[in-house]
């Protein structure tokens, strides 16, 4: 770890000011990705802006047909929230199945989404549920937020404040873990939204979360495993490494889609 300054602002405005004034400063939420990177000297920020003192960033609320989760809400809070379990049980289940106990008690939804690790869980949920990302200055739809591996639409100094999830009529998620890291090797989140539209998001398998439009079209016509049974994910552009080839991951997308559908009911 290299030396850095440490700030703990009490408001979004103060945090944004520090981040804007110093482009080399980095916000830190749960720190479950950034701290290991610092320890390995893979990141060298001038300052860390600890967001844990900002009350406006926390909390889970149901707002009509939407579920609003503050960016600094921890995985464990999402996993155990009755509000989440009632509104989008697949999201609560996802939160309970990511990382380990320590990660779930430190890591936050906003931190994970802002980091946009291709092998993280939440991007699939946010993409499939057509979430809206509320920042300190604007709202960004999911289709625009995720911009490939570790890249998002957030501008330098822009802070994610809350994530708004439209409450779906059906939603389910299934993933295959990477055997070593236990991050996502291939995951699929399927959702039927209140307006009847269907969205299918794939994480882990590619360089970033993406929508499987062929499956979306098939499921929009018929919400059934049979409808997607013949659809083969194209391995072109998917990840291949010592843990599995792109072909294997493409195959898993089909398997996980089927299982996610079974979860969704």
């Amino acid at each position, binding site marked *: 770890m290299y030396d850095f300054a440490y700030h703990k602002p009490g408001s979004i405005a103060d945090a944004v000011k520090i981040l804007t004034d110093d482009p080399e400063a980095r916000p830190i939420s749960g720190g479950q990705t950034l701290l290991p990177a610092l320890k390995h000297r893979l990141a060298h920020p001038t300052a860390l802006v600890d967001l844990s003192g900002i009350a406006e960033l926390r909390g889970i609320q149901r707002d009509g047909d939407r579920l609003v989760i503050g960016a600094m809400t921890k995985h464990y809070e999402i996993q155990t929230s009755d509000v989440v379990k009632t509104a989008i049980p697949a999201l609560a289940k996802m939160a309970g199945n990511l990382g380990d106990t320590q990660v779930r008690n430190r890591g936050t939804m906003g931190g994970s989404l802002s980091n946009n690790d291709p092998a993280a869980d939440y991007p699939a949920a946010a993409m499939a549920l057509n979430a809206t990302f509320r920042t300190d200055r604007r709202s960004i739809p999911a289709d625009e937020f995720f911009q490939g591996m570790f890249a998002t639409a957030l501008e330098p100094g822009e802070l994610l404040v809350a994530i708004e999830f439209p409450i779906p009529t059906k939603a389910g998620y299934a993933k295959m873990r990477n055997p070593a890291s236990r991050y996502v090797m291939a995951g699929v989140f399927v959702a039927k939204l209140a307006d009847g539209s269907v969205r299918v998001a794939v994480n882990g398998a590619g360089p970033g979360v993406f929508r499987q439009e062929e499956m979306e079209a098939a499921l929009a016509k018929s919400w059934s495993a049979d409808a997607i049974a013949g659809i083969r994910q194209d391995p072109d552009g998917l990840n291949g490494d010592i843990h599995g080839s792109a*072909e294997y991951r493409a195959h898993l997308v089909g398997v996980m889609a089927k299982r996610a559908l079974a979860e969704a009911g």
Partner: protein
Amino acid sequence: MNVVTPFEGIGASVRRKEDLRFLSGRGRYTADIDRPGQAHAYILRSPHPHAAIRGIDATAARAMPGVAAVFTGADMAAGKVGGLPCGWGVKNKDGSPMAEPPHPVLAVDRVRHVGDPVAVVVAATRAQARDAAEAIVVDYAPLPAVATIEEALRPGAPAVHDEVAGNLCFDWHLGDKAVTDAAFAKADRVVTFELVNNRLIPNAMEPRAAIGDYDPSADEHTLYTTSQNPHVIRLLMGAFVLGIPESRLRVVAPDVGGGFGSKIYHYAEEAIVTWAAARLERPVKWVADRTESFVSDAHGRDHVTRAELALDGEGNFLGLRVATRANMGAYLSTFAPSIPTYLYGTLLAGVYRTPAIYVEVKAVFTHTVPVDAYRGAGRPEATYLLERLVDVAAAETGIDRIALRRRNLVSQFPHQTPVALEYDSGNHAATLEAALRAADWDGFESRRAEAKARGKLRGIGVSTYLEACGLAPSHLAGQLGARAGLYEVGTIRFHPTGSVTVLTGSHSHGQGHETTFAQLVADRFGLPVSQVEVVHGDTGKIPFGMGTYGSRSLAVGGNAMAMAMDKIVAKGRRIAAHLLEAAVEDVEFEGGKFRVAGTDREKTIGEIAMAAYVPHNYPLAEIEPGLEETAFYDPKNFTYPGGCHVCEVEIDPETGHVQVVNFTAADDFGRVINPMVVEGQVHGGVAQGVGQALLEACVYDADGQLLTGSIMDYNLPRAEDLPSLSLSHHDTPCLTNPLGVKGCGEAGAIGSPPAVINAVVDALRERGVRHVEMPATPARIWGIIHGGGPKGAPAIAAA
């Protein structure tokens, strides 16, 4: 006086005395120790698998804040620091010695693996040392590298050491080739099989650490280190590397958080901190981080083997021929040459009567981290080969795999194998039948059918095993190339008020010695376990010792204590005879009491201890005061634990994921002191064996870069990967040591990999699968199920 409770002696599952300390964070590990005024060392390591060092410029680094010194290989050489020695010499087939190239503490003109130490920075803080290390400019000229056995043996391959032709360390053999060839000539059937034993990275929970401390007034060096054998380190480092006599070098191995073999060896960092501390007259501390451990702790396994089994028409094994190539890495680690030879070739009879065996082993240098013993050390490799081969033979001859094993089991003892070992005891039929019964082998087909209805492929596998533990009779080890004795030392020190301190040359780094050894002593003297303290891991306190590895602590160290206890009893009888005014031969000792035979006149051991230290009424003309005895125990033979493992797996054919759903072990460990501690050892061993079979693989790319350099890519077993284990033991006492004990530390890791893979192959048998290489990862299984393996598949995913 205290009387032993019936639940604390031999055979009682006494709770581990050390656990309160460990579980409440009061353990004292090397990294917990801070010496006054200490500085911190950071080791700069090679990022290249192979490169010439054209120059090292540390000018900027030396000027950085807090920096006390920067040392390079040239500085160490100028300071008369020797290279790291190898503790075991192996001979080639023609009797010539193995190639033994130098292993400098810091690389001098060439680096030979990623992680090879190049320079050390000593600074006031660890961060300052690391900052300065980043400012060292090393002028590397990268050279072509070889990472695998195949590449290293290819004609014209880059040389790891210029003086070692063809990268061949040795070409060794064991057994009678002519007799074995003759056995094959008359065989009805020959089964041929090739397999890989995957390379592993140990990953003890505690990374290695070392602190050098020098007292100029006494000219005395102290090394605190994460070691399984502090006396061995003192001998190797003192005599061969730094030239410090034992009398002025103290090595302390305090609490150590797991070793599994990886903390046996003498590592460069131990010499570096000891030398730097003396040079700077300031304590120097080094603590590895996990990333560093991956490229600096010795790795394990890494064999490629071709084997042939000759059978007659009824399935009797007639002969076994084995040709193995073993990866040594870039340098010879302390005991590396012994692992694929005397700890491997000698085990190829296993529990079978195979009358003729011939094994040849080529050991090969590559541009990878040195390879040495890892839990089991050669014996898992032998057992995996043998038990896979027996399953393949069963499939190809059509003989039931259990029947084939039953037919060939050794049942008469002693049994002389054709590969040098004489088994003293065992009941392999009993452990086989016990495991099959406990695993409900006969009821498996209904479980397979039930799984099939759920879309899962279920398989069952069996493995027998036998290991040679309790290393070792020194005269035999010496003949085989060991450059040290392999006895053990125990001291029993009674204190005046009757409590006991036990000094042992064994070292506990998770094994529970503080409890097991205390039970052994408490049982003999009728004391509560709480009255017996076990001290280990300090050459300043312990007379001598060879340490803990090869499941030897109880089998060798425990027997040293037993001999010392015999001496205590013998002296105690003489003291008691005096106090009781009886003849020595009339005094009996039992349950901690000396009694005149046939009378109620008695003295407790505590009263004897008091008399020995307060000798007012004492036969001073005949016996010295005090009650402390030391014994060196040199074993007569190896011990031969054995048993049978049965594994049941379910494969998800859609993902290729293998789940172990049942695991049964029936073991023979000889006499068991603490069954709970033994079960814990089996649990850990099985977890590591399942790890090797399903999860773990060290992968280098073709250029010699380590692809599995962290636990993000190196797959360690988690709780969810294991079922509850069904364990039992069926013990036959060892006949060659006083306690009748055999050892249990490695058995789980030895017996389990073939049981797991035999189960995986059984699950896939209907698809025509003959073999699945380890680790049986989801991608690998999927590739097999879906034919041909995935396109462009890299190492651990390939079918």
